[in-house]
């Protein structure tokens, strides 16, 4: 099966590590040019160098996801550098947090609005693309109570609903919109890595709740996301694909 990604241009928000970094790696491996941003200058530089080493054009910037102007400027710069935008991966997240109403503003600006702003800026390019597609990173935690009452879960649900509505609105233009909802994912620099080291009992109990007794690797999420966004998934529109290794138990009839 050919994903038909070669020669396309993708923007990935939040790609300095984890799932976003792996999405970029998979895309580059398929011959797709990649632009990304993150907070860590070194990590962004390393990501760009790696993607370029795989023979594609790559562009990276260091910025804060809360900075709306910076996100918009990055999207435009990415389009200019790569020569257009075919794929948008709205991947950035601030993660969870409790104990302050500030987390609602934080997840709204960083998770939700970075996606909205990137899609808005990318839209003129998507409309001209031969294979336009938007992939929104949701979460298993938007469909199942997880950790505790906090903004992260609710904002992930908002992202998912927004994506489904976008899918209906943009379908006539040939733009596909889909969601991947990963379960707990362990990678270098993930919150779960911190929990594994700093609070090993909590980690062990979270791992035991998985039928496969382990958490996802980022490549397992990224490959699914890249497939859903690729022309190979041409008939997927408004899908919300749960990729959690069987962690959640609900049967969505």
């Amino acid at each position, binding site marked *: 099966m050919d994903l038909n990604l070669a020669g396309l241009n993708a923007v990935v928000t939040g790609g300095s590590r984890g799932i976003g970094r792996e999405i970029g790696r998979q895309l580059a491996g398929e011959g797709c040019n990649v632009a990304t941003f993150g907070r860590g200058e070194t990590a962004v530089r390393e990501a760009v160098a790696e993607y370029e080493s795989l023979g594609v054009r790559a562009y990276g910037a260091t910025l804060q996801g809360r900075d709306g102007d910076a996100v918009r400027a990055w999207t435009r710069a990415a389009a200019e550098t790569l020569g257009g935008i075919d794929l948008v991966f709205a991947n950035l997240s601030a993660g969870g947090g409790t104990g302050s109403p500030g987390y609602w503003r934080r997840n709204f600006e960083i998770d939700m609005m970075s996606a909205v702003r990137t899609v808005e800026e990318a839209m003129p390019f998507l409309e001209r693309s031969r294979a336009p597609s938007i992939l929104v990173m949701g979460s298993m935690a938007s469909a199942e109570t997880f950790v505790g009452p906090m903004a992260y879960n609710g904002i992930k649900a908002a992202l998912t609903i927004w994506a489904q509505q976008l899918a209906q609105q943009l379908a006539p233009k040939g733009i596909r919109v889909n969601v991947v909802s990963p379960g707990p994912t362990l990678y270098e*620099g993930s919150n779960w890595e911190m929990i594994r080291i700093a609070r090993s009992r909590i980690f062990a109990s979270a791992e035991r709740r998985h039928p496969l007794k382990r958490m996802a690797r980022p490549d397992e999420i990224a490959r699914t996301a890249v497939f859903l966004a690729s022309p190979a998934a041409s008939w997927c529109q408004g899908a919300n694909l749960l990729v959690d290794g069987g962690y959640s138990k609900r049967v969505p009839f």
Partner: protein
Amino acid sequence: MTIQRVTGQDFTKTPIDKAPTPDLGYEMIPKERYISADYMRKEWDRLWTKVWLLGCREDDIPEPGDYHVTSIGPEEILIARQADGSVRAFYNVCLHRGNRIMVGQGHAESFKCRYHHWDYNVDGTFRDIPDRETFPQGAPPCSGLSEVRCDTWNSFVFFSLNPDVEPLLDYLDPLPAHLDPYHFDRMVKIMDVTVEWDCNWKTSVDAFNESYHVQGIHPELLYFLDDYDIQIDCYDRHSRYLVPFVTLSKRVRETTELPHLIKHAMQEAEMDPADFDGQAREVRRALQQWKREHGPRLGLDYSDLNDDQLTDDYHYLIFPNLTLNTHADDLMLFRQRPHPTDPDKMYFDMYLFRLLKAGEERPDPPRNATYKHGEISLGLVVDQDAYNLPGVQRGMHSNGLPGLWIGDQELRIRHFHKVLADYVGE
């Protein structure tokens, strides 16, 4: 990202210069020092009866007649506030037949032995000997209770069983210049707990004199402090290291979310972690600046402290047995005392002091409570140490252990043993 530190150009009252690293070699430390009853006796004769030792806080005995009984090895010491405001200390034994006179702490008009009611004034002089006519030889030829040397520094009361001991400030040198800027008198005691641990007192001192074990038994601290890139300074008797807090160890990677201990440190200063968009290693400087800016509004006076002191652990050992985790807002003080007879046991005294806000009413300090190991939590980190130390002590007795193999990260242990040997000998 290397840790940024205050430099000679920045404001500081506490000296920050790196002391020359002493050349103490790489010989094994004899394990017998930790397990031998003979060495323990030598420690009593040559160390505990020679040095200055912490007795109590000045605010444990604020009013004339207030007293506090503390112990060191086989001795008990009665510390009492005098009518003139000064503090004096005495062996807590009646000159009649040696009964213990006072217990714990409290207030008294006089110190009366409960056995035969020999009575002493707060200044230690004889007040009353019942049926004195039945002592044809008269009262003991001394004037009253046997006095020991006593002095105060920075809100703490010290005593010494050595009549010829040097002045307290000379003994503490150079630490008063380091620690006076913290103004411990502005802090209030909020915890006073003693726990009997199944290890030698030095096994405990060692545990707090190196950060090498953080990666071993305190993994949660890797997401709160730099356990590797720390400044170690050894002075004549005492030593310190400066541990950057509110950052990440080089052993772990940045994460998306701020670690919970870093969030907690921010929240303590009323800085909202949800509003901070930088990386975890950037919080330390930001929190320093925040506390500098907002401290006055919160009623917290940091004006004598440098920027690093607003976040970091300036960690001191006052030889032989006081460990001070010194922070801008609190002091975590450990006093490690030997058991009277058993080298495999000790008393771990843990005190917590918190900086009072301007205008905040000073609460009464808690009274000391004593427990056996495992009866009370001392907080996650000290619990981790407490759980570990009996195993270390047991291993010292093993034929499989020739001695202690000490590395550069444990320089303070080696320095401590050099000073110890200067007092006690090999």
